[in-house]
């Protein structure tokens, strides 16, 4: 190694906040170099990806639309990750949430009552929460690793969704397309700003941010969750019920992801289709880390992530790049973040800075 890591006596708070910014800058630089190598003007390309999409009102509105599911998933992940429960299954929980919401919505297309939309949302929450609780149950009762089970549940959820749109939920009048019927108006989320797709889902997401913030900062349950995550044997010693906490965190996280799914099908999409999520659940993992598992940080990180999604689409249209550029930027961002996070716990010593002051101090004796 060229560099030497020297442990800090105490974690640096400053670095904890600076590290995501540093990671963002490094991602931008790498992205620019990358565009240059692809034969594009790096500044123009970055502008196309990160500014053009939100340069008008419509773009800003779309940013809200895209932020909603990411924020809902990520804020839920904040709480499970705090407990060191590795729920990688937000994607699957989102899909099942969407599926459950749709299963109800296609059966109440004719209903015009005001309970229709809340009922569809609750169905989504219940679907996502149950899907997550399945993994929680396997973890607490059979000790099965939740990373692997939740990943498997993602694949199972995707197949269930595809099965449903090809089978039981397929629109009978839909010319055999793998889609459900369009939902009734009463089931759809109301539009907040006219002539845009901004829907009430963003309000749910912001409410969730506030509630989780209070939960983590003020409540005793939040304290127990933090202790469990930092030091499981201290939690046991204090008598906190670790299994109960795993269930609570998974319930919250799954429910919010389920709500995200319901918000997509009853929001911008309006029906169940095979692709209700371009990997929002996975992106939320990056967002949760990038936002330092803090609600406010996560809010900003979600906006950035939504922008990267829109930028990917813009790069496809304007620069003729593959859409996969979104995933590439997401991966880079997370890698840089993890690398920069080393500065929180360690100081970097460069080989050319030589021996530090110890030697000289010793010589004085």
């Amino acid at each position, binding site marked *: 190694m060229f560099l030497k890591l020297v442990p800090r006596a105490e974690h640096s708070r400053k670095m904890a906040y600076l590290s995501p910014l540093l990671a963002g800058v490094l991602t931008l630089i790498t992205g620019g170099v990358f565009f240059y190598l692809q034969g594009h003007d790096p500044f123009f390309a970055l502008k196309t990806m990160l500014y053009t999409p939100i340069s008008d009102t419509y773009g800003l509105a779309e940013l809200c639309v895209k932020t909603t599911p990411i924020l809902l998933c990520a804020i839920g992940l904040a709480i499970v990750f705090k407990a060191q429960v590795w729920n990688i299954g937000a994607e699957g929980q989102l899909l099942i949430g969407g599926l459950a919401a749709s299963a109800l919505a296609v059966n109440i297309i004719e209903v015009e009552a005001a309970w229709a939309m809340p009922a569809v949302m609750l169905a989504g929450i219940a679907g996502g929460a149950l899907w997550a609780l399945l993994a929680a149950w396997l973890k607490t009762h059979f000790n099965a690793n939740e990373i692997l089970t939740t990943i498997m549940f993602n694949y199972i959820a995707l197949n269930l969704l595809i099965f449903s749109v090809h089978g039981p939920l397929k629109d009978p009048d839909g010319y055999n397309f793998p889609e459900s019927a369009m939902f009734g108006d009463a089931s759809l989320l109301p539009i907040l700003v006219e002539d845009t797709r901004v829907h009430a889902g963003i309000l749910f997401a912001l409410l969730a941010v506030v509630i989780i913030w209070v939960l983590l900062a003020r409540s005793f349950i939040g304290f127990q969750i933090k*202790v469990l995550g930092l030091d499981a044997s*201290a939690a046991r*010693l204090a008598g906190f019920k670790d299994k109960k906490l795993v269930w609570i965190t998974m319930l919250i996280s799954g429910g919010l992801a389920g709500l995200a799914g319901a918000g997509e099908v009853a929001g911008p999409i309006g029906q169940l289709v095979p692709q209700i999520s371009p990997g929002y659940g996975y992106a939320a993992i990056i967002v949760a880390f990038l936002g330092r598992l803090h609600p406010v940080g996560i809010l900003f990180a979600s906006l950035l992530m939504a922008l990267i999604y829109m930028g990917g689409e813009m790069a496809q249209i304007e620069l003729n790049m593959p859409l996969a550029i979104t995933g590439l930027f997401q991966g880079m961002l997370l890698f840089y973040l993890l690398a920069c996070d080393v500065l929180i716990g360690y100081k970097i010593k460069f080989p050319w800075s030589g021996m*530090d002051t*110890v030697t000289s101090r*010793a010589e004085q004796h």
Partner: protein
Amino acid sequence: MNTPTVSSNPDRPKRLVMQGITKQYPGCLANDSVDLDIGVGEIHALLGENGAGKSTLMKIIYGVVKPDAGQLIWEGETIRIKDPAHARKLGIGMVFQHFSLFETLTVTENIALALGNEADDMKALAEKIRSVSARYGMALNPQRYVHSLSVGERQRVEIVRCLVQDIRLLILDEPTSVLTPQEVDTLFITLRRLAEEGCSILFISHKLNEVKALCHRATVLRAGRVSGACIPTEEDASSMARMMVGDETPISMDYDKVQGQAVFLQVRGLNQRSDDPFGVDLKNINLDVHAGEIVGIAGVAGNGQEELLAALSGEDIIKNHDAIHFPCGPVGHLCPEKRRRKGLAFVPEERLGRGAVPDMSLKDNALLTGFLTGLIKNGMIDHEGTESFAKKIIKQFKVKTPDSGTHAKSLSGGNLQKFIIGREIMQNPQLLVAAHPTWGVDIGAATAIHQALIDLRDQGAAILIVSEDIDELFLISDRLCAICDGALSPIKPTPQVTLEEVGRWMAGMFDELLPDEKTPEANIVSLQSTAAAVKTH
């Protein structure tokens, strides 16, 4: 114990000379211009409190740590020890305090790993292990897996690992802290024999009586610097203790022994199978702790202490609920929180990472078990109340810390332990269970902790102490017993017990009819066979 057979001879040829050794860690100068020399065939003691820099110094000799300044002269030549492999090639062997053994491997495999490539013939190596261990009176079966060995046997593996090579300097880091008094005697016989054969021995300890019994010379470290050098047989324990702790710190005092009042904790017929394949089953434990007394449980690590403590704290729920009683009734089925509500406080062995959350502030760590004292209102934390609770602990127990926002992990061991014990005591417990309360803390903090425990006892609380430090147990316990392989010895008032007897209990010999007239040597032989019989279950 015998006095050293080889007299200290300053003219004997030097094996190792260290000059001006300095090592800086972030925030702490571990070694500050340390000078030390060891002669051929000499048993040299390195004395010092926890944190005085002993471990760093010997890691430098063994090539694990590089010094920032200073030089090493090995058999007359200035050298730089690159790594442990290099140290071994020179003939330096080391017995670590926290053994560097691999539990899932056999004795032979463990020793082969340390030897380097020359140990390819495993059969020949096993034979060599057998013969070397027999020669020095430390019987070992090379085929056994390390996890099936007792702590004493594991130490033998560490020593034999050094002896199968051409050994010229053997370093032992606090080797006696894990042994029964009788095992200590056997170890000393082996070490003296090695020294007579010309091997130099560096014996690291803070136990002065052992140093007096074994060592030819001693070097004392305090706060990273050499604070004195002496010939142990010519000093008394208190003069060496002064060199270790300096003039300001009060050295241990005597406490009155008292008789308890009503029974608070009653354990009857506690049997518990361990879920852990490497764990110990508890066997028919019977124990009373009265209000206003301190009961001490001695024992070598890994004999069921953790399992007993977990059963008492409620971290493990026991099958027979009736086996543990408080005055309010059976509590064996209750979780830790409910037991706390009924008067229990608990101090675990691990300070960082159980007793306190390393990456949380002292304030949050005060809340960790202090939440029952009205700090939670409607499910929300009373932040101000918590803050003042933490400050009260810090003030009353003289915890050295910038403020209550400091993370637990940046406190020294002694300060953190004062904080944890303070947190438990401030909740006015009726029963305090404490594991190894002064393990690894400096003498000043240890004295403060002992005094706090005695004060709590005098206020009428029942106290149970589990410790590996026999001296500590004799100092503060009113009654004493020992645990071995998950079974408890008889309990006797401390003044009526001898060190010898506790040693026998620790080896599992609870039979009080055992003749005391046997010579020490004969005792050791019978002890070993009993211990071996106990361990091969």
